[in-house]
């Protein structure tokens, strides 16, 4: 039975967690190209000095990464000074090193020396559009209300993003939100005219984009700096100081371009950066440490993790939902509340639910499993309750009058009669979870969403497919497995495919 394989995998994954418990340094990164490269560089640098590293590269946006650092789920990630001053800490006036350090200290966080380049926000338009309209400065924007603008979701909300820019320059239009990695494609195919960019993005040159001059000096400075927990091993901190002042704007821009257009992996780009700058450690194994796993290894790791997430959510959800369904069946007053609450869970957008769980349980697989569990409850619960309440009253009367004990009644009458619907509900839940689990990569839970998120950030279709195709296949496979389970558990004439009212 394929269920056995799933369980065995789950056990293997769970066991590998137990082994990893000897406190490696957790290196995270935000989820765009530059962050991948710098996060990987930090990880390799530490490994080259013999530290054990747990990578959470591409973990998420500012809030997710910073909260994880404060919670102790992450030990180091690369952030930008402007972001710290504006989005994380709200520092008034010029954000000096001193002010930033004071603001971070209460969180148990310390800022190390910056990489040296300034990756500030910029507004980019295709050169052709800029020339046709005579656009050169941000202060020209109010004269072009018909420009089709789309900026990243974070930029749209941040005080140092669109809201502040709008106020200072008197722009009235509100742009649409768009995933940053998709914005350049949208510019190239002419579906938008303007987006926010980072000044070190490799795409600026590649797509022939003009950066509008920030003529009123709105955008703060965004120096890339490693943020570490103050309780990080001092030796590790010293190693990380080596990155200070190693990259200027042009060099960073070239590294980014190498990832997006040069077809090189962020891992190998990070490695050559460390080697070129001569800051790699002396650990003999450093070269071997580079994570160069094959497609097959990545696929099986991601798929295994994905199955673990789904199984760890759906199996407990099945037990809880079926238990609840029987409670509802026996105590009808209980039913409305329980079904409402399960329904409510279903309506919370998955990304929002994942984000809400971070302050409660941190990042990684646990919040993902909890979120998936909540999503799995409703289809199983609803199916089981419908099945139980639609059991013919005569059969219930006979079961009582025959003298079946409550446990026998369950085992021999109610459970088997509800089984086709319960199996159908679990099947729906499993397929929903396989899809939703791809989003779990946004909070560092891994799985098949990992290559998708990374592929989005690197604008790499091959990577996106590396997650999307197995996820879709897994969903189809799950359908097949459940058909087999149904054949095994339910006599032919009672199967959901033959019974009206139980199919979803």
């Amino acid at each position, binding site marked *: 039975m394929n269920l056995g394989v799933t369980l065995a995998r789950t056990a293997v994954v769970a066991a590998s967690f137990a082994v990893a418990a000897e406190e490696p340094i957790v290196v995270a990164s935000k989820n765009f190209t530059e962050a991948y490269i710098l996060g990987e560089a930090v990880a390799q640098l530490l490994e080259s000095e013999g530290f054990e590293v747990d990578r959470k590269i591409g973990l998420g946006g500012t809030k997710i990464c910073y909260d994880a650092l404060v919670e102790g789920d992450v030990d180091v990630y690369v952030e930008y000074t402007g972001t710290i001053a504006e989005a994380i800490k709200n520092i008034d006036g010029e954000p000096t090193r001193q002010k930033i350090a004071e603001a971070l200290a209460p969180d148990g966080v310390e800022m190390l020396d910056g990489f040296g380049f300034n990756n500030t926000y910029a507004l980019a338009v295709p050169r052709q559009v800029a020339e046709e309209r005579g656009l050169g400065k941000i202060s020209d924007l109010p004269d072009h209300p018909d420009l089709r603008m789309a900026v990243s979701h974070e930029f749209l909300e941040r005080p140092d993003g669109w809201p502040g820019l709008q106020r200072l320059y008197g722009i009235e239009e509100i742009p649409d939100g768009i995933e940053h990695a998709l914005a350049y494609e949208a510019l190239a195919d002419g579906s938008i005219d303007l987006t926010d960019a980072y000044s070190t993005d490799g795409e600026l040159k590649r797509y022939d984009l003009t950066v509008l001059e920030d003529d009123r000096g709105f955008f703060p400075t965004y120096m890339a700096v490693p943020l570490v927990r103050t309780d990080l091993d001092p030796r590790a901190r010293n190693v990380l100081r080596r990155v200070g002042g190693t990259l200027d704007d042009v060099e960073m821009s070239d590294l980014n371009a190498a990832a997006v257009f040069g077809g090189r992996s962020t891992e190998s780009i990070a490695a050559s950066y460390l080697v070129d700058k001569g800051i790699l450690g002396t650990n003999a194994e450093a070269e071997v440490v580079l994570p160069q796993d094959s497609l097959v290894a990545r696929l099986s790791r991601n798929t295994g993790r994905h199955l673990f997430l789904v199984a760890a959510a759906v199996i407990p959800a099945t037990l809880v939902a079926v238990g609840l369904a029987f409670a509802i069946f026996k105590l009808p007053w209980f039913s409305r509340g329980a079904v409402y609450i399960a329904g409510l869970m279903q309506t919370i957008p998955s990304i929002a639910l994942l984000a809400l769980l971070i302050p409660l349980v941190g990042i990684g697989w646990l919040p993902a499993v909890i979120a998936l569990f909540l999503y799995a409850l409703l289809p199983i619960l609803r199916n089981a309750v419908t099945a139980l309440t639609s059991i013919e009253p*005569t*059969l219930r009367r*006979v079961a009582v*009058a*025959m003298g079946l*004990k409550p446990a026998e009644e369950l085992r*021999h*009458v109610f459970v088997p009669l509800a089984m086709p619907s319960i199996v159908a509900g679990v099947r729906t839940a499993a397929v929903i979870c396989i899809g939703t689990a791809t989003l779990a990569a946004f909070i560092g839970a891994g799985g098949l969403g990992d290559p998708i998120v990374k592929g989005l950030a690197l604008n790499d279709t091959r990577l996106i497919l590396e997650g999307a195709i197995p996820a879709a296949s897994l969903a189809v496979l799950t359908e097949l497995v459940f058909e087999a389970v149904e054949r095994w558990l339910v006599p032919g004439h009672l199967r959901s495919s033959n019974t009206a009212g139980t199919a979803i």
Partner: protein
Amino acid sequence: MSAAQDSAVVFRGVGKRFDDWVFRSVDLALPAKRTSAIVGESGCGKTTLLQLVNAVLRPDEGSVEVLGGGVPDTGLEAFRRRIGYAVQGAGLFPHLTLVENVSLLARLERWDGDAVDARVGELFELVGLTRDLDHRYPHELSGGQQHRAGLCRAMMLKPDMLLLDEPFSAIDPITRVDIYGEFEALQGHEQVTTVLVTHDIREARRLADFLVVMGGGGVVQAGAVDEVVSSPASDQVRRLLESGA
């Protein structure tokens, strides 16, 4: 009426209400080892009275004595297993085969396989079912076969009493006559006290020894079938008897 030694069920001043009283002050004794039929217009409380016997319902006034004792407060399942029960439409479990339906209680009582098989064989022979049907699901059986199976299930544990709630009313008339014969064979073999609820006076006269006529919120007349037929207590009873003449 006093509780004679040979009464299997004794009602003393029994009343039952849901919103309104269904009936009140029922005093009645049903003879042991005989078949009693409860007849009356629909809605007069026949099924309610029957459900007081196996304690699916409890009386709101008065007391019910069954098989020489009061209805127990605990261990109701063991009590109910001494009382077989069959309903209109047979009520077989759709997920169990014929033989699984019939033998369910015996298996729960941990009878050994041979004993189960022997009892199933004995009952099938009495009601005219053949063993090649053993592994069919209810939907693969005819209506008549399902009802025979319902009777066998009720009789599986050799109960002290058999309650039948209009068990033959959904069967076509020709099959019904056959089943009457088989029921009588079963009855003759098992000698079990039977209480039959029916709206069909002909069925009552054919199968029962003792007749209970209900109506107007209570029992109108009760007695041996011949007695009731020869001297109906009221015009209402006379009309009822004539309706099946």
